[in-house]
């Protein structure tokens, strides 16, 4: 609506200019003239219901609601200078208070309540109301997270409208009529939206309060520290509200580039892991086979001596470091610097590593303006919820279509876009087929920039939609429908997730044997990336963005926690780069590529790996192969928040700080560098990662290198990062603190050539007829969430989802207790029969079973084939 044309008007004798299309309320607010509202919220469509914002507009009969009145040239508006309008607002407050319980002393909203503020500002001092107040339900749990007080509710329907307009979750509504109107859910069903916590923020009274924060503190007792949510790759901006050194609540902090003013319920309610009693509070050292508490100097001494001994006896190739996608950039940077310059090895990696060929998403708000969104092995609703919210904005406000290419249906399938539910392992064939169908639509000259379109036509010849139907399990009509949508699209975008990358190894040539050189294994994801690039090129060079799972996935890669890459993704084999790094770090560096994680595990099996330092990762739980091998490493050091499966295997366990307890930075999925600020003291003797690494380095390096490790704060580490990382020279710290700083994006040459990708039909295995695919749930029993008690109530029991056709064939019914059996292992689970999974495929969510799904995996690059037995 807003245009560039300016309109001039007078509000309370003040001359104001504002763009055409604004409302009087917006114009007044921008000019600093306060107009109270209850129903209106700047992020919601105005409804003009509460009548709180009535103003006088010259030339119109009666008072007007400023939230709905558009500005006009020459308009004269009176807000506080109109006795009629002032009186109307005073009367409205009086009306509201007649039946309001006035229980502010025990109301969580007290102190930040618009009704309270407005009553103080404009309301009558005394009540003229002598009748009995209306009685409604006062402690009504709407679901696991919110309790409703219907007596406090002023029926502004902000909550209803937020869930309708933004979340697309029509779960709340008004029931009854007039004075008897009540807010509730249909038939009292529990509220399930993952966005419900936001209704607490926008509720203008204390009707909706958090069941987690309820009665924990008065809001003025909280110290609110700006922070970043660590639970997914979006990095929503938040405030941590701390009282008595405990995080009591998390609220969103506005950032139009990332989370607007919202945050998902996981980010809001799952903070209790920070103050969990099982947090590690002291270093642990193994004595007589048992991990015993130790002082920092004892523990660091044991580590330093342990590493030195291995270096002396077995050399630097016998040591490795495993970093994490969850720790800060400062921790990652110092960690790889330590491993490279002190331990003298490039044996460095982290799990869930983003392949360096994957490109980050450019911008979250831009998603709103996409007309067709392709989700390729990505489920934003569970993996990166804010991405879902922006996609829903595109769908709900602009009618965008969502094409879901995934073995199982996801929440965003609900908007009726085509679902291409392929059998895991056949993804490459499917995408080739989609491209073939796209070429068949004609595509209106989109492919102009590509140089080898004719070759592509020939390559794709065998991939006609009808011909891949059997191998992929996707109906030709669905492929053609998706192609048709894409051919018509003006602003399409492709989002792909980690699950898509696994289609590379699955669908390409025969799998490499275990023990093959590691770079070959990591290179297996290449075909999956090439196909994404092909599709993007075919659509005219559109954006394709990777949506990772973890908080600092981009940071771990960018900081160089990788066997072949220095910070800034510079190759370790480049002599010039290496000598530059060596001069920064004051130490000679190894010119040899290191082992990646698979290589480390091979080395462990062959007893070539003598020591390993694991920082913030739990491979023993997430990788069966690793679980068995880590125990064989003689000197294992683990640094984490909790005594994880991996930590229990260690010789030394070092207690680290959580995101709430140390300053640092992280890079979100769009490449934005954001500051995390310490909001409380760590529990016991837990220490920040940068401190631990620095202390250890000082113990190990010779005197002349001590100065190279003279960091006294994470800010000093960032100073060095700004010098070392290409593009970070102009790092703007103020911007980083305020809303994030976007480093310059490397200018990548536009691809003009299609890469041929052959897709091999996965081999059938009659004994194990089904393919297992896994995925994330929003709430699970993962490392941190497991220690967040309030959200554990909404984690489902482990289940395996199977198509009705397959269920019939194997005689399975909903709720049956079964075993999932693969060649590698077996796992108990419960059957869920649903047509939301492709035939021939079973879906089991990660991190909900007691035993990890990884027991079924042969290696971490392939979906296992399974049978389901009763």
């Amino acid at each position, binding site marked *: 609506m807003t245009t560039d044309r300016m309109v001039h008007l007078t509000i309370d004798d003040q001359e104001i200019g504002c763009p055409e299309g604004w409302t009087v309320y917006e114009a007044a607010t921008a000019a600093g003239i306060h107009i109270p509202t*209850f129903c209106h919220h700047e992020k919601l469509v*105005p*409804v*003009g*219901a*509460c*009548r*709180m914002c*009535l103003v006088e507009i010259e030339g119109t009969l*009666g*008072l007007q609601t400023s939230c*709905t009145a558009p500005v006009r040239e020459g308009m004269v508006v009176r807000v506080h200078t109109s006795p009629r309008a002032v*009186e*109307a607002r005073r*009367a*409205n407050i*009086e*009306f*509201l208070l*007649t*039946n309001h319980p006035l229980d502010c002393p025990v109301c969580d909203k007290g102190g930040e309540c618009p009704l309270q503020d407005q009553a103080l500002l404009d309301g009558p001092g005394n009540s*003229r*109301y002598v*009748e*009995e107040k*209306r009685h409604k339900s006062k402690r009504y749990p709407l679901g696991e997270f919110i309790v409703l007080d219907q007596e406090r509710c*002023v*029926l502004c329907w902000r909550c209803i409208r937020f869930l309708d307009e933004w979340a697309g979750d029509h779960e709340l*509504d*008004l029931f*009854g*009529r*007039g*004075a*008897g*109107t009540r807010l509730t859910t249909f038939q009292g069903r529990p509220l399930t939206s993952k966005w419900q916590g936001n209704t607490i923020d926008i509720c203008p009274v204390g009707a909706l309060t958090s069941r987690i924060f309820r009665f924990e503190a008065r809001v003025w007792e909280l110290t609110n520290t700006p922070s970043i949510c660590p639970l997914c790759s979006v990095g929503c901006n938040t405030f941590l509200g701390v009282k008595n050194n405990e995080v009591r609540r998390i609220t969103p902090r506005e950032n139009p580039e990332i989370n607007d003013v919202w945050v998902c319920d996981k980010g809001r309610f799952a903070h209790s892991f920070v103050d969990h009693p099982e947090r590690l509070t002291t270093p642990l050292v193994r004595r007589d086979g048992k991990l015993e508490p130790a002082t920092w100097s004892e523990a660091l001494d044991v580590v330093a001596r342990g590493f030195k001994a291995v270096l002396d006896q077995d050399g630097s190739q016998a040591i490795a470091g495993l970093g994490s996608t969850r720790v800060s950039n400062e921790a990652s940077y110092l960690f790889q610097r330590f491993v490279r310059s002190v331990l003298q090895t490039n044996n460095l990696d982290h799990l869930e590593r983003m392949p360096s060929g994957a490109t980050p998403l450019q911008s979250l708000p831009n998603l709103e303006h996409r007309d067709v969104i392709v989700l390729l092995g990505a489920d934003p609703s569970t993996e990166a919820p804010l991405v879902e919210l922006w996609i829903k904005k595109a769908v709900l406000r602009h009618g965008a279509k969502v094409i879901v290419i995934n073995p199982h249906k996801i929440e965003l399938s609900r908007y009726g876009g085509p679902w291409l539910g392929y059998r895991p392992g056949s993804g490459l064939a499917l995408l080739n087929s989609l491209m073939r169908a796209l070429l068949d639509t004609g595509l209106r000259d989109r492919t102009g920039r590509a140089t080898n379109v004719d070759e592509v036509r020939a390559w794709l010849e065998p991939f006609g939609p009808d011909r891949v139907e059997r191998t992929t399990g996707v109906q030709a009509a669905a492929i053609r429908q998706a192609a048709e949508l894409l051919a018509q699209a003006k602003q399409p975008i492709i989002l792909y997730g980690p699950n898509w990358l696994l289609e590379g190894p699955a669908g390409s040539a025969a799998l490499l044997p275990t023990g093959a050189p590691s770079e070959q294994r990591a290179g297996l994801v290449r075909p999956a990336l090439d196909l994404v690039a092909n599709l993007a090129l075919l659509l005219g060079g559109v954006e394709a963005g990777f949506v990772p799972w973890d908080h600092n996935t981009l940071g771990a890669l960018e900081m160089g926690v990788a066997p072949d890459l220095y910070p800034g993704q510079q190759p370790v084999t480049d002599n010039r780069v290496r000598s530059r790094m060596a001069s920064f770090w004051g130490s000679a560096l190894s010119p040899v590529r290191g082992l990646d994680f698979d290589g480390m595990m091979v080395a462990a099996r062959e007893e070539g790996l003598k020591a390993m330092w694991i920082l913030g990762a739990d491979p023993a739980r997430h990788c069966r192969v690793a679980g068995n091998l880590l125990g064989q490493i003689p000197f294992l050091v683990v640094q984490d928040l909790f005594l994880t499966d991996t930590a229990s295997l260690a010789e030394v366990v070092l207690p680290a700080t959580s995101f709430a307890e140390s300053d640092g930075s992280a890079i979100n999925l769009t490449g934005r560098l954001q500051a995390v600020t310490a909001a409380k003291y760590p529990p016991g003797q837990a220490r920040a990662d940068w401190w631990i690494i620095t202390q250890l380095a000082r113990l190990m390096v010779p005197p002349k290198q001590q100065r190279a490790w003279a960091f006294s704060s994470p800010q000093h580490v960032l100073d060095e990062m700004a010098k070392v990382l290409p593009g970070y020279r102009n790092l703007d710290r103020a911007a980083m603190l305020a809303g994030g700083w976007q480093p310059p994006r490397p200018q990548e040459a536009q691809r003009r050539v299609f890469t041929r990708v052959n897709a091999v039909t996965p081999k059938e295995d009659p004994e194990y007829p089904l393919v297992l695919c896994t995925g994330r749930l929003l709430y699970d029993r993962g490392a941190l969430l497991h220690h967040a008690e309030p959200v554990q109530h909404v984690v489902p029991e482990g289940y395996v989802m199977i198509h009705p056709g397959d269920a019939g064939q194997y005689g399975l019914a909903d709720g049956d207790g079964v075993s999932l059996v693969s060649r590698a292992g077996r796992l108990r689970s419960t059957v869920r029969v649903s047509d939301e999974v492709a035939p021939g495929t079973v879906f089991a969510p990660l991190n909900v079973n007691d035993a990890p799904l990884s027991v079924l995996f042969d290696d971490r690059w392939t979906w296992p084939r399974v049978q389901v037995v009763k």
Partner: protein
Amino acid sequence: MQTNVLLRNVGVADSYQIETYVQQGGYQALAKVLEEGQPSKVKEVVLNSGLRGRGGAGFPTGRKWMFLPKGVYPRYLVCNADEGEPGTFKDRVLMEHDPHGVIEGIIVSSYACEVEHAFIYIRGEYNLGYQRLRNAIDQAYAAGFLGKNIRGSGYDLELSLIQGAGAYICGEETALLSSLEGKRGHPKLKPPFPAAQGLYRKPTIINNVETLFNVPFIVLNGSDWYRQWGTELSPGIKLFSVSGHVERPGVYEVPLSTPIRDLVYDICGGPKDGVPLKAIIPGGSSTRMVRADVAMEARLDYEALCDVGSDLGSGAVIVVNEKTCLVRLVARLAGFYRHESCGKCIPCREGTDWMYKILQRIERGEGRAEDLPLLLDICNNIAGKSFCPLGDAAVQPVRSSIERFGEEYEFHIREKRCMVDG
């Protein structure tokens, strides 16, 4: 002084069957407009007739039709048959006794407005009316007056009959549209007005049953014929629903500007049992009550009733005699508005509840001297501030009774009993 145009079929045997209707000269207007084939001519004659909306607001029908944006299709026409204004029962008579007249009005008006899908939204409690309309619509389809290519003219019209679920607010046009769309019956923001963006966000004409019922007669006989009755600003004939203390309550058809005295004394047989009259509510409960002696000097048209401080409204004349306690009557009406307030806006939702509670208290004999100024204050704080006209309507009986019959309230509060109970 009564006319027999609109009610001509009432009392005729099987008046609701299509054969009877056709026999009585029905569907002639439709034949005429289809033959002429000029929708704009129909619009013009309705505009010239000065016909005003019979639902209560009295907006000129022809002008409303002119608000339709040019070239935007589809358009819808909605016949507002959610007759809920207390004291009003004229549309019910038309729908029960002359459903084909209603349908012909809809078809002719739809033709004029280039509408191809029309709706009747009928009050949920009107079961007989619903049955008769259902039957009549089926007959009209069978006879080719509805559906594709009506009477070979090439004009198509679908007519859907939808029942309300018992909410007074759904008589308000935008709430009606919400309900028709399957949503909660809440009034919507204006602008956009329904003529610009109404049902399913398409241009929509909403007219009252009686309004549409007038159209075929105007089309057949011309605007001058229609203007032989009434005044310049209130032309034509009107149905009045007379209730309360008269000898013969009922629905009567008289020219506009007929003196109230004629309607009450001559047509309705005067006060029941000869008990002197105290007050008249001339246009349904949402219009201000007037002292009977003042009312008897007034005429039944928009201007004259305005002059005595009331309105023509929906033409529901409620006659109140001296044996009636006005406090109880107003408390009852306040209860109605409290019950029917949709709850969307604060002034109406809270104000109607508060007024009702105060009036109940006064009625119980627990009134306080400060209650009367408080009631008037609440009235002021609702009037003009609510989202839709329901709030304004709720104020009318309370404010007009306190202003014009204050002594009854004062007696109640002072004596803690009713003035008329003796």
